[in-house]
């Protein structure tokens, strides 16, 4: 009876022991961790500088790697043809297929083309000289070959000419005036007086008789040589389709003889297209997807692959160096925290004695490790800024680009900070386990010290 009574009370008491809210304990543990670091400020500074000395070169290396790869990529991107997936020969591309490809997220620009043999016209310049077989390229909004903001032809009577062609036409110094000729051409009225007025001549032979169609064109802009270095006209697809139809003998022009807007919409199938990917890394997959449909394509794959290879190689080198540096950092920090736990064993035992739980005491080296690593990263960031400034000052001038050789983005810094915290957590594990095992009795036992 007595025994039962007692055990019953023991049961009740052991498990009704109120689990007091220990929210204040967590705040106190953080405060203790920080005050201890502050008290040992010289030791702390040594650890922080150790971490910074490892991290700063790693950040610089990462910045350099990014800078080199980005510079190479920008050099490639400066020529938009590096983004092109060239469809080779004549294919049979229907509107559904084109819409499907255009909807892909890796496609930046897609416009159908006529057969290559029909993608040129003879030109009569204002002085009635004939320029035979000038390439005609369809264009539309978002054309990567045109500088952003270029005014586009608003109807099939308007064209852009490349700089080389403009020189041959004697237009290079002339300011192309889009206003009057545009409205004139729209009404089918020839505007011979305008110096930028050209005539496209499309020839055909029907039943042994040579015929030709004359289409008046007005030049509304010049495409810089850096964008396209050959003679060419950039115009709407309507003009190209009309020329093709004329050669095929199926041209159906209205009485005024002008090609109307939207003429190309009657065409359901095209022989070719101009196709551009959104970025260098998208060119390969896009080309693969198109050629998987039996369409022969060509890209600047080798140039892109060489940049990607440089990227991969430098990234691999960086990862190896970062891994070695990170491991060294973890060992140095872990050792320091371990020694700290040993050195402060009595203090940790006192905390246990005063009623801090094993988890709270184990958290101390973890918090301290994180604080040291965080401060180290901050110092390393200052070191990085100094080093990056020196690099850019010495070597940035030789760069074609913006003159920034070292580059670190917010995302890079975020990943770096996360990895550093991970290293700190790993490093503090041993110290934390050791601290968590400190017995409260040691607070009394080792009284004399």
């Amino acid at each position: 009876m007595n025994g039962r009574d007692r055990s019953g009370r023991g049961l009740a008491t052991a498990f009704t022991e109120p689990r007091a809210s220990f929210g204040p304990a967590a705040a106190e543990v953080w405060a203790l961790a920080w005050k201890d670091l502050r008290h040992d400020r010289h030791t702390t500074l040594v650890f922080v500088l150790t971490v910074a000395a490892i991290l700063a070169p790693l950040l610089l290396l990462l910045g350099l790697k990014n800078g080199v790869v980005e510079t190479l990529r920008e050099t490639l991107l400066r020529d938009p043809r590096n983004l092109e997936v060239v469809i080779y020969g004549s294919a049979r591309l229907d509107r559904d297929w084109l819409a499907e490809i255009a909807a892909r997220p890796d496609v930046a620009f897609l416009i159908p083309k006529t057969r290559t043999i029909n993608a040129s016209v003879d030109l009569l310049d204002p002085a009635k000289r004939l320029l035979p077989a000038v390439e005609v390229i369809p264009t539309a909004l978002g054309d990567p070959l045109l500088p952003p903001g270029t005014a586009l032809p608003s109807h099939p009577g308007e064209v852009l000419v490349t700089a080389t062609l403009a020189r041959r036409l004697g237009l290079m110094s002339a300011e192309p005036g889009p206003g009057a000729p545009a409205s004139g051409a729209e009404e089918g009225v020839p505007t011979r007086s305008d110096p930028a007025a050209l005539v496209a001549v499309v020839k055909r032979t029907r039943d042994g008789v040579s015929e030709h169609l004359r289409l008046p064109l007005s030049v509304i802009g010049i495409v810089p040589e850096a964008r396209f270095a050959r003679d060419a006209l950039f115009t709407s697809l309507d003009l190209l389709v009309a020329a093709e139809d004329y050669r095929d003998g199926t041209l159906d022009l209205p009485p005024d003889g002008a090609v109307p807007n939207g003429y190309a919409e009657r065409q359901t199938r095209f022989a070719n297209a101009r196709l551009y990917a959104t970025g260098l890394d998208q060119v390969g997959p896009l080309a693969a997807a198109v050629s998987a449909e039996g369409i022969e394509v060509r890209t600047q794959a080798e140039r892109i692959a060489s940049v990607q290879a440089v990227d991969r190689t430098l990234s691999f080198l960086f990862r190896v160096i970062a891994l070695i540096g990170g491991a060294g950092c973890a060992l140095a920090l872990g050792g320091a925290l371990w020694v700290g736990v040993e050195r402060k064993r009595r203090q940790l035992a006192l905390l246990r004695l005063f009623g801090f739980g094993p988890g709270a005491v184990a958290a101390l080296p973890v918090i301290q490790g994180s604080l040291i690593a965080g401060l180290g990263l901050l110092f390393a960031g200052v070191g990085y800024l100094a080093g990056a400034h020196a690099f850019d000052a010495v070597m940035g001038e030789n760069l074609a680009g913006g003159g920034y050789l070292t580059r670190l983005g917010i995302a890079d810094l975020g990943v770096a900070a996360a990895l550093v915290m991970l290293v700190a957590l790993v490093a503090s594990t041993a110290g934390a386990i050791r601290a968590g095992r400190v017995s409260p009795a040691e607070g009394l036992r080792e009284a004399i010290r």
Partner: protein
Amino acid sequence: MGSRMAPVDNASALAISLDVPDSPTAGPLIEATRLGYRYGTGSGSFEVSVPRLSIARGETLAITGESGSGKSTVLELLGLAAPPLPGAHFLLYSAAPVDVARLWRARADGALARMRARSIGFVMQTGGLLPFLTVRENIGINRRLLGLPAEDARIAHLVAALEIGSLLDRRPAQLSVGQQQRVAIGRALAHGPALVLADEPSSALDPRLADRVLGLLRDLAVESGAAVVIATHEQGRVRALGLREIRARPLDAPDRLGSCFEDAS
């Protein structure tokens, strides 16, 4: 004791106004039988045994014995800092009676830590203060752990009685040993524990200072209703204070080394 012991004279008046979480009325605080601890194993082992011990609330008693007799170990057992050998019966009347032996068997480290935080205060011989905290922060550590306000009448009274008001913003390294012990007493009593355990609190001090520190500890504990257990090798000083004495004697066992702690009366 010197003339500076003035706070003792109006102690009874102040005791009423101080908040005491555990009931200050006389009643059992600790009831323990067959409390034991063993160092090492086999023939080289050393056993500390407390066959029977009961401590009333607010009582002051002394544990005496030679150095190495295991006085500190008894404090560790009473302070929930070391696990008793199997077979112990150990009740601590906190807010409610708690079966401490059962908590140890269940390895309830967290629950034991919480009980230490709330119900027990410790005074060490030396070095019982955290060097990286100021005197004020050292005194308040258990109060912060428990979520109590940093300042109240109890703290103000302790600071005044211990005459450490001018030291509050210093760190332990800047204090004399006597000052450190006064701060340690303040820390042990700051959160209103039911039990204060003091391990040789006066041994590192010169005799005049030792009397004063011991007197302060006892008087302030009595004021706040806390029971005090003082472990010391200085039997004479304990007797001068007229304390109940638990004394160590060699263990009555031919095959084992150890100490047995029993009432000296």
